[in-house]
């Protein structure tokens, strides 16, 4: 066991899987010699050579299109998009090509790959280094969306994603890259894709979150406990495919739900979870489903701490659903 930060766990997963599987190749802007702007690939080019850790030209659609071609021809690419805010030039390749290939070719061609990208606010990154746009990608059939919230899951989920036969968008909460540490086994292990985790059991209110909002919810649960609200916190870990059972089981127990995400409210993934609960567990509900989210504004710079959900805003929503 080693005590690693989240970004170190990402690097450890890449290192581990590259040593085990010669098909695994990394590509992206600054991932080689420089080891990535967040150092997620530090030292990997030295270890595995320029053929397996490639500095590419500065073009996101090129990075993903290149990865698709390499995957079709037998490799297992892990392209990096330096910030999720820069992913849109590659949107067409991801949505119309990577995600559709298995289906449109009748299963003849597949392109398993893991698109790693740091996402989310809280680092003073302004509009173009802070967004959290998982909903665009969760809306795309053929793509899996995985988001870890701690170092152990980061390594296990990343290895599971690399071994998955389908393309995965792997969103890394950059706000947690160095702010959380945890025990991470040295060997290769996997955390199953599509399985949420109850990270705090509770009986009164279900808090549902992913990525950097998981620690926010855990803090909120601490604020609520002395006020008589025992919160259960679910870390979804995977948005697609969604672990509906874990959500519904918790809702049937608590009858009260607060969904927390960084992204703007309208059409955020919280809306999908809310709809799911309405469809499948409406008679278990004791209060309306609440969402604590980013605002329907572009992501701000100076006031980002106001934009982002924090433990107090979550606790206020818990108060509303318990006192409904």
């Amino acid at each position: 066991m080693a005590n690693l930060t989240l970004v170190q766990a990402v690097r450890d997963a890449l290192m581990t899987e590259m040593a085990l599987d010669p098909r695994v190749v990394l590509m992206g802007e600054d991932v080689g010699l420089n080891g990535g702007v967040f150092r997620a690939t530090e030292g990997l080019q030295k270890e595995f050579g320029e053929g397996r850790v490639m500095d590419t030209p500065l073009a996101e659609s090129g990075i993903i299109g290149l990865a698709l071609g390499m995957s079709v021809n037998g490799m297992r690419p892990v392209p990096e998009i330096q910030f999720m805010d820069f992913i849109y030039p590659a949107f067409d390749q991801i949505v119309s090509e990577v995600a559709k290939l298995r289906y449109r070719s009748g299963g003849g061609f597949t392109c398993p790959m893991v698109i790693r990208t740091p996402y989310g606010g809280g680092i003073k990154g302004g509009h173009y280094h802070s967004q959290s746009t998982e909903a665009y990608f969760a809306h795309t059939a053929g793509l899996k969306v995985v988001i870890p919230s701690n170092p152990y899951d980061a390594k296990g989920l990343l290895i599971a994603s690399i071994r998955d036969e389908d393309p995965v968008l792997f969103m890394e909460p950059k706000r947690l890259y160095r702010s959380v540490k945890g025990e991470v086994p040295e060997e290769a292990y996997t955390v199953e894709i599509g399985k949420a985790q109850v990270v705090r059991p509770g009986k009164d209110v279900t808090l549902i979150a992913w990525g950097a909002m998981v620690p926010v919810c855990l803090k909120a649960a601490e604020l609520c406990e002395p006020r008589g609200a025992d919160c259960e916190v679910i870390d979804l870990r995977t948005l697609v495919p969604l672990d509906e059972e874990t959500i519904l089981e918790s809702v049937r127990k608590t009858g009260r739900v607060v969904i927390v995400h960084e992204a703007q409210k309208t059409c955020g993934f919280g809306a999908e979870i809310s709809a799911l609960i309405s469809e499948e567990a409406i008679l278990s509900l004791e209060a309306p489903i609440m969402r604590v989210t980013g605002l329907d504004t572009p992501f701000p710079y100076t006031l980002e701490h106001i934009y982002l959900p924090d433990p107090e805003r979550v606790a206020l929503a818990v108060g509303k659903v318990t006192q409904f």
Partner: protein
Amino acid sequence: MLEKHSKSKKKKIVLKAPSVLRADCFRVLDESNRPNEKVEPKLSKEVLLKMYRNMIATRLFDERGMLLQRQGRIGFYVPSFGQEAIQIGTSAALKQNDWIFPSYREPGVFISRGASLFEMLCNLWGNQSDVCKGRQMPVHYSFSDLRLFSVSSPIATQVIQAVGASLASKNRKEKDVAITYFGDGGTSENDFHTGLTFAGAMKTPTIFICTNNGYAISVPTQKQTGAHRMVDKAIGYGMPGVAVDGNDILAVYAATQEAVDRARRGEGPTLIECVTLRMGPHSSSDDPTRYRDAQVYEAWAKRDPIQRFRQYLEGKKLWDSKKQEALEAELKATLAEAVEKAEKEPVPNLDTLFEDVYAELTPQLKRQKAQLLAEQELRGKFENTSEAFPL
């Protein structure tokens, strides 16, 4: 040849007869369809006849595809009339293991590689025996066992993907190359630019075939770009480029063969601009008389690539009318048989809607599938009652 012709602006080419073709294009056949022996590729009789056969097969397939659409038997078709030399000439320079990333106007490339006519036709109907299981519009073929990549509708997406496939081969020290096809319109797309940028920077074994057929649906090439020649773009990406007469199969073959040889030697990518005119509509939904210059069309009609190659073969005493009749009869019969068989295939089973989204059905897809199948059971029951819902 590549180096020489990439600078061909300076070189004077003396033509025996005036041509609608741009003067800088590399050519083997002159306007009287006589070969320039200095650059004529040395191909065996078998190879030449195979190329000719594939050209005819492609023309007949296109004619049949358009006819089937006009008869209302299939929904849509994209013909490649006039572009047979480009498709067959490039294909002839490839080995069976080389990767092909086509656009949607390359039936001849599929035919040359040996794709099954029956399976191609099944794609036109989107039926049970369609390799794509009826999930794409007609002409979006995909043959993974032949390394013929799945056709996409968005333009030029395949260009950068071909670079990736060839990079994988290069990194594994294999000798396979990748060839990719796109039109003049495709050169305006982002993925053309990223594709050639990456290939130039990474020196990948990729051959870029730009079929400059004069139009992107209705928009003429001169409105597509300020560049006078598509091949000039090669310079900016740091690779050699050559413009060829796209209606001269021998020129197309020779240019491609040289590019393939360079790629296999590890000397990187090449851009080949094949200059031609799209002689058919963009698709069965298009009427080119709305925008096409009739005089230019007539001039190109006199340069039909099949007729030109036929004259070349006849000049070598390799072909005559009798052989032509026999070949057409044979290919038409084969095609008719395949059409008859393909048209009888049933539509895909409803279960196939849910397959291949992921390697395995997700819980959500399982539930949607069960719900859809249950709804199917209830279909038609609204007609028999005006009271309770048929739940």
